[in-house]
């Protein structure tokens, strides 16, 4: 595996705008995040946090903007990224066991045709052990609790051995034990100079977990080291009604520009 290049930001985003059905969900986002940070992406509902992750990974189309991951375009560094989706987005009734789910983490390396070897199984098992799910390896994924489901997906991400990890609300509705396991594993990754971006909803734990914070509400409110960025003023700007005028005007102008009556 190639070592990450030093002195290049893990992530650089410039002028990113994303629409959903012609309404802006993200507007003119400029971000730069250095390597080895544990980043919390925060904002109210509908602020575009999930969309930010998906836009960076090329999962949703963008209206404008450039994205560099470790200084390169997404297509070149796909293998260095891993994504853990929101639990709602998963088809839990699919006929797949925990073990098979985690093994998927090897597919970017194996491609479409190479056989899965004993070594791959071994690596998958190790990741399952790391998250404490090795006893559930043969369970179908709907037979797991919320926390266990989250851990299984995390194990898959770990198996991918990426440089940047994107997680969408991994701690939503999980038990305390799972929360600890997840944070511990992610912190370990950060210690090894990996970068972790996590959409988070609980403002009380931000200080404890993250060393970098991105505050979003359709526009970027602030992005920087946790101590200097996670201030009362910025929180108020993100979650408060201060930008109601902006939001309203933005939406109206888009509606009119698309030819709908006001």
């Amino acid at each position, binding site marked *: 595996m190639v070592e990450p290049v030093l002195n290049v930001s893990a992530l650089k985003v410039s002028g990113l705008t994303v629409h959903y*059905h012609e309404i802006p969900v993200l507007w003119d986002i400029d971000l730069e995040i250095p390597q080895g940070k544990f980043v919390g992406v925060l904002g109210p509902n509908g602020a575009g946090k999930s969309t930010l992750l*998906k836009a960076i*990974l*090329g*999962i949703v189309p963008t209206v404008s903007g450039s994205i560099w991951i470790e200084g390169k375009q997404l*297509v070149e560094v*796909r293998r260095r*990224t891993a*994504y853990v*989706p929101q639990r709602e*987005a*998963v*088809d839990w009734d*699919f*006929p*797949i*066991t925990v073990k*098979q789910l985690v093994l*998927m983490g090897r*597919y*970017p390396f194996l491609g*479409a*045709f190479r056989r899965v070897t004993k070594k791959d199984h071994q690596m998958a098992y190790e990741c399952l052990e790391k998250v404490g799910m090795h006893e559930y390896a043969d369970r*179908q994924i*709907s*037979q*797991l*609790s919320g926390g266990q489901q989250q851990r299984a997906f995390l194990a898959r991400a770990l198996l991918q051995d990426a440089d940047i990890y994107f997680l969408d609300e991994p701690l939503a509705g999980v038990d305390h034990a799972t929360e600890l396991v997840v944070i511990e594993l992610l912190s370990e990754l950060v210690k090894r100079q990996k970068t972790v971006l996590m959409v988070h909803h609980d403002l009380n734990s931000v200080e404890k977990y993250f060393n970098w914070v991105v505050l979003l509400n359709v526009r970027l409110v602030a992005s920087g080291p946790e101590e200097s960025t996670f201030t009362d003023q910025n929180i108020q700007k993100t979650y408060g009604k201060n930008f109601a005028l902006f939001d309203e005007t933005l939406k109206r102008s888009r509606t009119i520009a698309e030819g709908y009556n006001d």
Partner: protein
Amino acid sequence: MTQNPYWGSDFFSFFAILFSRVQEFFVLGPSQMQLASDELQLFVLTLISISSALIGTFLVLRKMAMLANALSHTILPGVVFAYLGYHYFYASPNEIDFSHLLPSDSLLVVAGLASGLVTAYLTQTLVQHLHQAEDASIGMVFTFLFAIGIILVTAFTKSSHVGAELLMGNVDALHRADLSLIFWIFVANLTIFALLWRPFFVSTFDPLFSSMCGISNAAIGYLLMGQVAVCAIGAFRAVGVLLFLAFLVTPPLIARKCTHNLKVMAGFACLVGALSSLIGVAFSRHLLSVYALPCSTSGLIVTLLAIVYGFSLAIISRPRA
């Protein structure tokens, strides 16, 4: 005309005769044996059911079952266009007669593929650009294309009776040539799934992950639609387009109740489909021999599948999380 060796046999002797003929086949070789009509039906139906079960597994998991229903209607205009095109460019453009079998199987396959792709494409356009709900889009596309098909058929053949054969098929009117088309479709499907199993699996379960792996979900979707369409073309003469839907959907539903493993599910669906075909053909012969009642073999197979599914629902209970 040689007598059908299955004539007059009941359900159990059907299998006895089949077994002995298989043994004869291995001893005497293909040149000495003639394919009985029951055997032809059996092979055709078995191959169709295995192809359908494989394709249907992914259709069901991708929630595309009603798209397959739409396709079963839109292959009509596809076939009509192919037929018209053939006549205008190759044969005499004046006399167009639908009552004969269509000119060439490869033309039919192309027609099927084209219908599949056009249906999928139009549905996507309605959903993305006109912001319509997916089920409404499917409904609009297939009814419109079907209507166009009927209008063209009427305009060019002076009769609009497309009817019964397309809907019901006629297993008793099969020829050796049909077997060869269906065989190649079967081989093609097996090959596609053997080669592209992983992309199909990943793109069906986790489209986000698969697009991050560089797999195009759209391409897999269109490929699957193409497979459904071509299989429908192969199947419509034997089982008709409606019953083909049951071959697509019911075996995977049954298999899903029985296993949590995708590969096992696909394999089991094929097995269920094949066995139902075998039992269906045997039972149909039984009804004819013992009760002098001719029965729609494909209808019988579909009913049998439904009953098996009913049993599987009643007997197998899912462990709750």
